């Protein structure tokens, strides 16, 4: 362990001792620095660097600036700053909970009893219904170590094919399109610091001003240095307000829009012929697709006037360098993979990929959205972003695990399919769920909640009693960010290190410990190594490195010491003397022939378009002061004060037609359910569309309405678009 690493690390006993001496005292900044732990925010995929000092009068740690970390250079949003509120004992779980019989209350229990109950329940279901009746549902917020061992636990101990995670609801469409085009899926192929240097940036269905505020600095810098920002969003978001040009298509229009821009790039002679010839394949088919999307037709499909399309095509096509970044807006559709493919086509046709300051990227969502999808908690993958169907991959991973390759199950069900089948014949009967809250965040959440209730055994590991945990038979309280070591991989593909700054409460354990204990109770295959489920994160990471070696997401050369010393290491990093890969594809793309592949795609309607009975679009999204299902942020007073509850955003003309006043409760109804929330009237939204944030449970749960139609490739549900009708709630209530 290097000296530099030791000095920055609160795990060091000396530093810890020093921290303890400040208990109860007001810290000076010098003192804070001396006792500080350098770590990262528990929330989004930026994984902003932060420094934890403290304790303070209100919390056991205090969030301080960490100005030397390059991603955020000290800046934090309200979510990150208020994260210590979740360390308080009264908002979190501090001991296991058990339900003695269905419908009974959750009661406190000791760890041995809870673990015995879980192991016995899983074993019974496995014995009665076979291993695939036991399922695992993970999360994109789990560290790489947890995600890796959860996947290993599912395949080795449970022997089930059915493990998937909520990242399926997050980045899966971009991931699929990325792999199809470039042969590799990493959120950004370049570091964030490249963004201000590009000529023209197109943000498609991304609202970083609310979802990752510290990133906004890069967009501002871009404009200050003369670059152009184009934002595509059906709403005039805070991000759209920063733009030079805002295109406001109707929901579901992004695929046609991208093809329309590609069409104009062809028409206006802005194709980079040399690049297309040298570094790509399939242009002619993509061009033919674009020819089927001529400007008048695209205007008709998207609602974006032709002159705006021309302006956007010219700005992007004529720029020397350019980037397209997508987020959930274009991705969470039953055509999400094709939509992202079309935006990648636009980059490829104009030579804006695989070159400095150019390329396509995805703004991943969850804290470890990137790493969480690389190491084996996805139904079809093994660590290192390997395919579970590839014999060589199975052999490699089996060797690291010390098992027979033949015992590793094949691909399982995707997230929604897994949830949809819970308790059904042939479906999962016992589910182990970690780091996710599908009772709020899954599409068609009313139905999913019913499915969760129908399980023989639901085990939830979480730090708070989420809506999903409330449904569980066993709730296991687990450690959170400031209480554990572990790596995450941010949207840049930068592997970073979270450090333990304080001890968890007495009754709280890490997921790694839980997995080891369960493995011990359930039994492991003969010959399985004794330390096959390490409790120390660094030991787990070292095994992950070996498992990922040679895969697409190769972490072999990354160590805790290097991460600390280098402000994170970018994968792929195949050897300890390899510098890591900050910028991908500069020489070649990761396809067998080194060329990027155009996608030949065509606009198609959403699974459910508005009609006479459900005449409006509903689109869903996020607000600044809440995060995902709200399980964490809804427990923080200052965040609730800023964003107290759900609402239905609608245009004043729509409100007038429906006879709805600002603040009045409105009922939103789809074919799947109903939600009630106050109207928020603004001309920032299209008159044919209403918007609801999805962070809340209960009557205002947006996901009661959403459509679980899946993308055929990525299995992403259509969160961003369904057909609804809207009426004043009082009027509707009186028959």
């Amino acid at each position, binding site marked *: 362990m290097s000296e530099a690493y030791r000095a920055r690390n609160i795990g060091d006993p000396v530093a810890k001792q020093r921290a303890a001496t400040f208990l109860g005292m007001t810290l000076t900044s010098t003192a804070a620095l001396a006792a500080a732990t350098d770590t990262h925010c528990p929330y989004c995929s930026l994984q902003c660097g932060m420094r934890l000092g403290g304790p303070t009068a209100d919390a056991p740690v205090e969030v301080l600036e960490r100005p030397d970390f390059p991603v955020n250079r000290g800046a934090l949003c309200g979510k990150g700053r208020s994260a210590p509120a979740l360390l308080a004992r009264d908002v979190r779980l501090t001991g296991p909970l058990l339900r003695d019989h269905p419908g009974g209350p959750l009661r406190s229990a000791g760890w041995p009893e809870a673990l015995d109950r879980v192991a016995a329940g899983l074993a019974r279901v496995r014995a009665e219904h076979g291993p695939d009746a036991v399922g695992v549902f993970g999360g994109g917020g789990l560290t790489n170590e947890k995600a890796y061992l959860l996947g290993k636990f599912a395949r080795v101990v449970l022997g089930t094919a059915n493990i998937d995670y909520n990242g399926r609801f997050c980045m899966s469409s971009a991931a699929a399109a990325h792999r199809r085009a470039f042969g590799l899926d990493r959120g950004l192929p370049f570091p964030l610091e490249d963004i201000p240097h590009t000529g023209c940036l197109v943000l498609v269905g991304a609202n970083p001003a609310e979802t990752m505020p510290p990133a906004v600095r890069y967009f501002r810098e871009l404009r200050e240095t003369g670059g152009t920002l184009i934002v595509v969003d059906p709403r005039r978001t805070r991000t759209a307000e920063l733009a030079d040009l805002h295109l406001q298509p109707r929901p579901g229009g992004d695929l046609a829009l991208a093809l329309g821009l590609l069409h104009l790039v*062809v028409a206006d002679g802005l194709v980079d012929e040399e690049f297309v010839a040298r570094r790509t394949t399939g242009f002619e088919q993509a061009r033919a697709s674009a020819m089927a999307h001529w400007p008048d037709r695209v205007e008709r499909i998207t609602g974006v006037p032709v002159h705006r399309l021309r302006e956007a095509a010219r700005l992007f096509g004529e720029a020397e360098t350019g980037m397209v970044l997508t987020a959930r807006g274009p991705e969470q559709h039953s055509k999400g993979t094709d939509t992202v493919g079309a935006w990648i086509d636009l980059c490829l046709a104009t030579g804006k990929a695989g070159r400095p300051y150019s390329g396509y990227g995805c703004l991943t969502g969850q804290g470890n959205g990137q790493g969480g999808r690389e190491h084996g908690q996805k139904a079809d993958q093994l660590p290192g972003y390997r395919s579970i169907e590839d014999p060589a991959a199975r052999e490699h991973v089996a060797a690291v695990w010390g098992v027979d390759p033949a015992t590793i199950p094949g691909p399982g069900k995707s997230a929604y399919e897994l949830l949809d089948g819970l308790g059904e014949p042939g479906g999962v009967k016992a589910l182990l769920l970690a780091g996710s809250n599908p009772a709020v965040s899954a599409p068609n959440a009313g139905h999913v909640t019913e499915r969760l209730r129908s399980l023989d055994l639901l085990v939830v590991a979480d730090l708070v009693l989420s809506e999903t945990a409330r449904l569980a038979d066993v709730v296991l309280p687990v450690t959170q960010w400031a209480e554990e070591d572990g790596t995450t991989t941010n949207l840049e593909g930068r592997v970073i290190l979270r450090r333990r700054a304080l001890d968890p409460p007495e009754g709280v354990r890490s997921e790694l410990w839980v997995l080891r204990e369960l493995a011990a109770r359930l039994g492991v295959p003969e010959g399985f190594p004794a330390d096959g489920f390490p409790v120390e994160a660094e030991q787990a990471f070292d095994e992950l490195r070996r498992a990922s070696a040679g895969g697409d997401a190769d972490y072999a050369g990354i160590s805790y010491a290097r991460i600390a010393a280098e402000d994170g290491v970018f994968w792929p990093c195949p050897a300890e003397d390899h510098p890591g890969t900050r910028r991908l594809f500069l020489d070649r793309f990761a396809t067998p022939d080194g060329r990027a592949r155009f996608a030949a795609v065509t606009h198609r309607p959403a699974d459910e378009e508005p009609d006479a009975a459900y005449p409006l679009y509903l689109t869903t999204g996020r607000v600044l002061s809440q995060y995902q299902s709200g399980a964490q942020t809804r427990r923080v007073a200052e965040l609730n004060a800023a964003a107290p509850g759900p609402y239905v955003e609608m245009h004043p003309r729509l409100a007038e037609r429906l006879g709805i006043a600002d603040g009045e409760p409105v009922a939103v109804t789809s074919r799947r359910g109903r939600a009630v929330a106050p109207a928020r009237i603004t001309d920032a939204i299209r008159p044919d569309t209403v918007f609801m944030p999805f962070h809340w449970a209960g009557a205002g749960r947006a996901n009661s309405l959403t459509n679980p139609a899946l993308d055929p490739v990525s299995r992403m549900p259509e969160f961003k678009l369904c057909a609804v009708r809207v009426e004043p709630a009082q009027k509707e209530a009186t028959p």
Partner: protein
Amino acid sequence: MTPRIAVVGGGMAAARFAERYGALGGPGTVTVYGAEPRAPYNRVLLAEVLTGRYDAESIALPLGGATARPGCEVVALDPAARTLRLADGTVEEWDELVLATGANPVLPPVRGLRRTDGYGLAEGVHTLRTLEDCARLAEDAVGARRAVVIGGGVLGVSAARALAALGVRTEIIHQAPYLIERQLDAEAAEVLRERLRTLGVDCYTGNRARAVHGGEKVGAVELANGYRLDCDLVVLACGTRPRTALAHAAGLPVATGVLVDDGLSVAPHVYAVGDCAEHRGTVHGLAGPAWEQADVLARRLSGAEPDARYPGTRPRARLSTGGLEYAAFGTVDETLDPGLDVLRLTDATRGSYKKLVLRGDRLVGAILLGDLATVDALAGAFADDGALAGHPLHLLTGGTAMTGVAR
């Protein structure tokens, strides 16, 4: 057995059907028989191929997994035997037949259009329906000084604009009192005419061409009023007529077009889509409705939605080419009905004209010309059956909330 689907005609509707059928996972094999020597392309873009904005090669359309048989003209159909015969005498079998034969340009009753031997058009006289037409016209336009376009509808205006862009002084002769009279009103047409004038196109409306003079090579067009326009080129843009001869000869029901029901069915196992089809008394002759029909038929025949129905297409006219921009919806002539009101905004300086036709608080028609900022809001209002909330002025000014380039 894998169903064999024969598509007769290789135009836009054919391409769309083939592509969608494949994309929807249709189990059959699709063969597209086209008389033209090349695989389907986007005909909407021809005027801009003429200006050189698009290469002829670059406007090919996707076909999915279908087999294109360009240069294979179908000359006879036998719906009972489920066969078709090609020009070379080959007989091919099919299980389902899709007629997408399109339309032919209408030749107006003007003397001297044809060659003296009666075959084909006289030298210098052109239509603009195919890429071959386009190539010939482009070749002729090199070195031409003056052109006359007979017909002032959308195609005539687009063709004239394209010729002017190539440096050929161009005149439009149009029989109706004003340009594009099916979609615009007189005031809009006047603004358009002014715009055309600045682009190098003059218009003679309320005039009819009587004869084309010149012998071997066209030299002038004589108008009904005796006036003579000297020219090296004539382009005929007098509309199109559905190609129904094959269907007619096969005993299939034909009126103006091949008659289809809401399922686009003509007879058992025979369907028609696009410019050749007549649905509820309407032959659309536009790419938008043709594609909607092709989409519906692909959903039916692929099995994705066997009961899909084509409900018809609301008329919506749109031109957005080389400095000419307009959109027209619904009923634009308020003089037809005393119950209609009009809201109009004209800006001569910026060359824009905008008009709403209203019945009470419902929108029944609209024209936007020169300034299309509110085109999306208007389309939205029409999608809502014209129901309006509040004052409709927002449909003429502002548009949906879109910022321009700020710097």
